[in-house]
C-alpha cells in the first residue's frame, strides 16, 4: 500500500515537472516575442542607421530618415474628413506624392506646382512638374520648370541662387529639402538636363539669354541642379 502511494506520488511529480517545463518554454517564448516587438518599435522610432546620399563629387550627404510617426493633422489630410476618428492616415513611409509647392527662401520664391507637359506649361503663376520626372524624395530627376518673365513668371530671379541654397518642395505629407549643387546655362536642345538619374536630384529650368523674337523664346536655358537632403518636416501643409 505504502509502495503504491509512493509510486502515485512520483508519477504525479513527474507530470507536474513536465507541465512546469512546458510552461517555462511557453513563457520564455512569449517573453521573447514581447521583447522582439518592443525592440522593433524602438528601432522604428529611433532609427540608428544613417542613410547617405553620394553626390557627383564623391561627397556623401546624410539623408533624413523618413519619420515613421504618422502625422494625422487636419492640414495634412487630403480630403474633407467627416469625423476626426475616421480620417485617412498618411503612411509612415515615404509616399509617392506629387510636389505641390516650390519654396526657394534665398530668392523669395513660393509658388504652387502642378503636373505639366514640356509643351503645356501652367497658364498661371505656377511651376510645372514635368510629366514623367521623379517624385519628391524619390530616386531620380525631378524636373521643375517656370517662366522667367511675362504674366506667368515664377523663376525670374533663379539666376541669383547660389550653390548651397535650399530648395524646398512641399507635398501633401512632407517638406523635402534639396540643396543647390550646380548652376549652368545651356542651349535649348540640351535635353540631357532632363535626363533620368539614379540619384535623388531636382532640376530647375527657366529661360535665360537674349530674346529671339522670331522664335518667341530666349536663346539659352538656365539649369539649377540640387541634391536631395531629406525631409525638413512631416505634414507638408502644416
Amino acid at each position, binding site marked *: 500500500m505504502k509502495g503504491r502511494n509512493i509510486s502515485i506520488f512520483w508519477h504525479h511529480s513527474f507530470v507536474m515537472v513536465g507541465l512546469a517545463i512546458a510552461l517555462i518554454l511557453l513563457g520564455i517564448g*512569449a517573453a521573447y516575442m514581447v521583447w522582439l516587438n518592443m525592440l522593433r518599435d524602438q528601432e522604428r522610432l529611433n532609427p540608428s542607421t544613417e542613410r547617405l546620399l553620394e553626390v557627383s563629387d564623391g561627397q556623401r550627404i546624410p539623408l533624413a530618415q523618413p519619420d515613421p510617426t504618422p502625422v494625422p493633422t487636419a492640414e495634412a489630410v*487630403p*480630403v474633407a474628413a467627416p469625423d476626426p476618428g475616421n480620417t485617412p492616415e498618411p503612411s509612415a513611409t515615404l509616399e509617392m506624392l506629387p510636389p505641390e509647392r516650390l519654396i526657394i527662401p534665398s530668392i523669395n520664391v513660393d509658388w504652387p506646382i502642378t503636373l505639366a507637359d514640356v509643351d503645356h506649361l*501652367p497658364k498661371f503663376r505656377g511651376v510645372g512638374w514635368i510629366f514623367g520626372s521623379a517624385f519628391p524624395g524619390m530616386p531620380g530627376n525631378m524636373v521643375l520648370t517656370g517662366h522667367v518673365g511675362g*504674366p506667368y*513668371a515664377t523663376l525670374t530671379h533663379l539666376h541669383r541662387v547660389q550653390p548651397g541654397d535650399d530648395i524646398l518642395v512641399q507635398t501633401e505629407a512632407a517638406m523635402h529639402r534639396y540643396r543647390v549643387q550646380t548652376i549652368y546655362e545651356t542651349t535649348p536642345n540640351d535635353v540631357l538636363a532632363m535626363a533620368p538619374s539614379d540619384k535623388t536630384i531636382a532640376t530647375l529650368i527657366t529661360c535665360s539669354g537674349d530674346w529671339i523674337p522670331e522664335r518667341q523664346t530666349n536663346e539659352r536655358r538656365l539649369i539649377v541642379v540640387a541634391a536631395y537632403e531629406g525631409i525638413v518636416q512631416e505634414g507638408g501643409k502644416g
Partner: protein
Amino acid sequence: MKRISAVRIGLFLALCLLFSSAVAEERPTTVSLSTELLTVLADVEGLGHRMTGVYIIRRATDGSGRVFWRFRGMLDGEFEEVDGEAFERWSLDGDVTVELTKFNYPNFTLDKLPARRMTLMPGWDGLIVIAGVPLAVKGEFKAPTAGSSPVLVVTNAGRGARVITELPNTAGSPNLEGVQQP
C-alpha cells in the same frame, strides 16, 4: 515537497503568460482609418479640353470600399483643385464599380455629373474609354491591399512614347517683368 514546488512553478508561469499577453494587448493601436495610397498621373486631351494633373487617392484597407480622392492640376492650363469621396466595389472575377459620393467644388453638385458610377470589366488590358475618349493606363490597378501599382499613368491611347527635343520654353515677353509673390 517536490509536488508543491512544481505546482507553484506552474502557477507562476501561467501568471507570467497572462501578464505577457496583457502587455502585448496594451500596446498602442491607431484608431485612424487605414488607407492605401494610389497616385494617378493624368495627361489627357478630349472633348475639346486638356487635363493635366495628379489624383491622390487613398483607399480604405478595411474592406469598406471608401475612397478619398483629390485632384490637383490644370484644366486647359488653368489651375484646378477638387476633392471628394467615392466607393469602390470589387467582385471576385475582377470587376470593379466606382461610385462618386462626394465632389467638393464651388457651385457644383454630383447631380451635374453625367454619370456617378463606372464599372470596369476584367481584361481591359490597360485601355479604357471614358466619355468616348480612349485612354491608356500604365500600371496595375487592383483591389486595395491586392498589390496595385503605387502610381498609375493615364494618357490618351496611342500617344506612344514622347520624344523631347527641346527644353521647355519658359520665356516671357522681355517687356513684362515677373512679379514675385509678396
